[in-house]
């Protein structure tokens, strides 16, 4: 084990996978310079045939990823900010997500799209979105939301080695967070949630960037005598709903914390699954802590107003645990 930063973990995964398989290529806007740090050093190591800057043309980049993957390469497409997924969305929704089915399974599309998501840094509405609900709804696309450096590395390696399009959503502004990373070659399988904290009183599902505030809130809850279990799904497609259901059956209470807007979010999807599959075990309503259905404002205080935070989690968890068993 070694302690590393989140962005370093991503960088290592790229480096190791490019080393491992000469068919792995990386392209995107400004990847040579690596403005997030995640592609740093790759150009020097692998040259421009393997990693190259592109023009700013996301619609084409997403389509090119499909063409390059369909013809035998493993493509890592860096789309920088998740909002730029929208400008490439035609090829993502209409080609990347559908070509395998439409060709009756003739095509494999090993594509990993990297994009930073989320608010908290005054980048305003067009650089702060959390787009996983949209991607989850496409079908045919894996959605990865690693919260820790180890998961970032292991999931990215799995995505690059995989056979399907995967969106690797990195929490913007979390690049400096550090954590322990296993030594050597390791992968994190898709569809396997992590129990980030064990507890008996309430299940808090923390999606991606929300793991950090949820864990901090759990410590506060602990000092108030509330023992929270924290589940990090790690991948939203495929989703390990069994681990979540098992936990909720044990605790009888559930909160899902998601930085996406509330309407049709991963949180609402999970809430529906819990209501469906763990109904008899519930002692309280299932709660969602999400961003309201608004665009991310610019001013730091306005941004804080809409982002889920520790106090909110503590408050809602406390209220839920104090709720008497529903008849």
């Amino acid at each position, binding site marked *: 084990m070694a302690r590393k930063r989140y962005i370093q973990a991503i960088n290592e995964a790229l480096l190791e996978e490019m080393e491992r398989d000469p068919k792995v*290529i990386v392209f995107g806007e400004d990847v040579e310079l690596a403005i997030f740090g995640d592609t740093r050093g790759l150009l020097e190591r692998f040259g421009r045939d393997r990693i190259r800057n592109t023009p700013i043309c996301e619609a084409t980049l997403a*389509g*090119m990823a499909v*063409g390059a993957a369909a*013809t035998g390469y493993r493509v890592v497409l860096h789309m920088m900010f998740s909002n730029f997924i929208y400008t490439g969305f*035609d090829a993502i929704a209409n*080609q990347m997500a559908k070509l395998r089915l439409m060709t*009756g399974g003739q095509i494999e599309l090993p594509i990993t799209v990297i994009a930073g998501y989320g608010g908290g840094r005054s980048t305003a509405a067009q650089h702060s979105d959390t787009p996983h609900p949209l991607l989850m709804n496409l079908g045919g696309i894996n959605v990865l939301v690693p919260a820790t450096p180890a998961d970032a590395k292991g999931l990215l390696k799995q995505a690059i080695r995989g056979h399907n399009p995967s969106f690797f959503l990195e929490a913007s502004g979390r690049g400096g967070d550090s954590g322990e990373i296993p030594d050597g070659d390791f992968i994190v399988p898709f569809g396997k949630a992590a129990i980030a904290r064990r507890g008996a009183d309430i299940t808090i599902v923390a999606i991606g960037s929300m793991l950090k505030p949820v864990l901090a809130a759990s410590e506060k809850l602990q000092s108030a005598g509330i023992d929270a279990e924290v589940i990090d799904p790690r991948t939203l497609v495929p989703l390990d709903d069994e681990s979540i259901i098992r936990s909720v059956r044990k605790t009888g209470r559930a909160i899902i914390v998601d930085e996406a807007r509330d309407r049709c979010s991963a949180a609402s999807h999970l809430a529906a699954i819990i209501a469906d599959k763990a109904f008899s075990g519930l002692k309280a309503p299932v709660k969602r802590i999400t961003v309201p259905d608004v665009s991310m404002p610019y001013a730091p205080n306005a941004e804080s107003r809409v982002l889920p935070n520790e106090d909110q989690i503590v408050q809602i968890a406390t209220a839920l645990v104090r709720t008497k068993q529903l008849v």
Partner: protein
Amino acid sequence: MADQQNPSNEQLLSLFEGMTLIRLMEERLRADAAAGKLPGAVHLYIGQEAVAVGVCANLRDTDWITSTHRGHGHFLAKGGDPKAMMAEIWGKRTGICKGMGGSMHVADLSKGILGANGIVGGGFAIATGAALTAKLSGNGRVAVAFFGDGAANQGVFMECLNVSTLWQLPLVFVCEYNHFCEFTPTATVTSGEIADRAKAFKIPCEIVDGNDVVAVWRSAAKAVEWARGGKGPFFIEARTYRIQGHLESEDLFLAGGRYRETQEVEEWRGRDPIARLRDLLLSKGVSTADQLDGISAKIAGQVDDAVRFAEASDPANPELTFDVMFSGQKP
């Protein structure tokens, strides 16, 4: 005798066969669509056969093409199996895409056919990506993006002209100017000349009579040689005409609405690319009328076989939907 300039007599006959196959397949689909036998809509290629056949005659199995929603012609010209195509359009499990794609999505990776595409302009970037890997591999492959005049107004067209020129990719753009963007005449929604857009990137450019298969063949030979030689993209605009509507059965919902004059259609019918090639073959003494009729009859038999095969095949397996959504993973 074959050279860069002109196809050999043998090649001319092969072009005739290729175009006739497309025509007879499409005519049969027209009839079967009208008879209500097909589950989905078909967009027919009648009148444009010279473009697909003239271009694909210059390609190898290992070269890539992307096609359009009007893609049967490209599929067949690139060597796709008529039976498997017909079964696909009929929604059968023996279809080339096992009934999962249908008319607008016929694809055969083993023949380099990356697929017809229901999104207008959807093929540009896929072909550009294929051209990128061809260049990276140094395998001498080229990619051809077939697209219509309608697609030329999509932004990705400009993006792909830029990227392919910038990186000198082995990519041939083939604009099939069939005069219509679905139900709208192209001239009413297009400014300037489409070929000028390619010229702006200094891409070598040829405008050819898309109903003259020899002219298309000649231009494509030059374009493919250029791209294969590592000189970058090439642009061909083939002027042709869509004889059928945007899709069969459009009369049902257009409710008498018209977007073109019958006279215009008839004028273009008079420039039929297959009839023109037939005239050439006869005037050059390459074949007799009887021989050409014999070829057509043989191909008509092939089309009958394809339809029989499609009709006799089992319907698609609905469970396959779940199996092929992902590779090795449940949806």
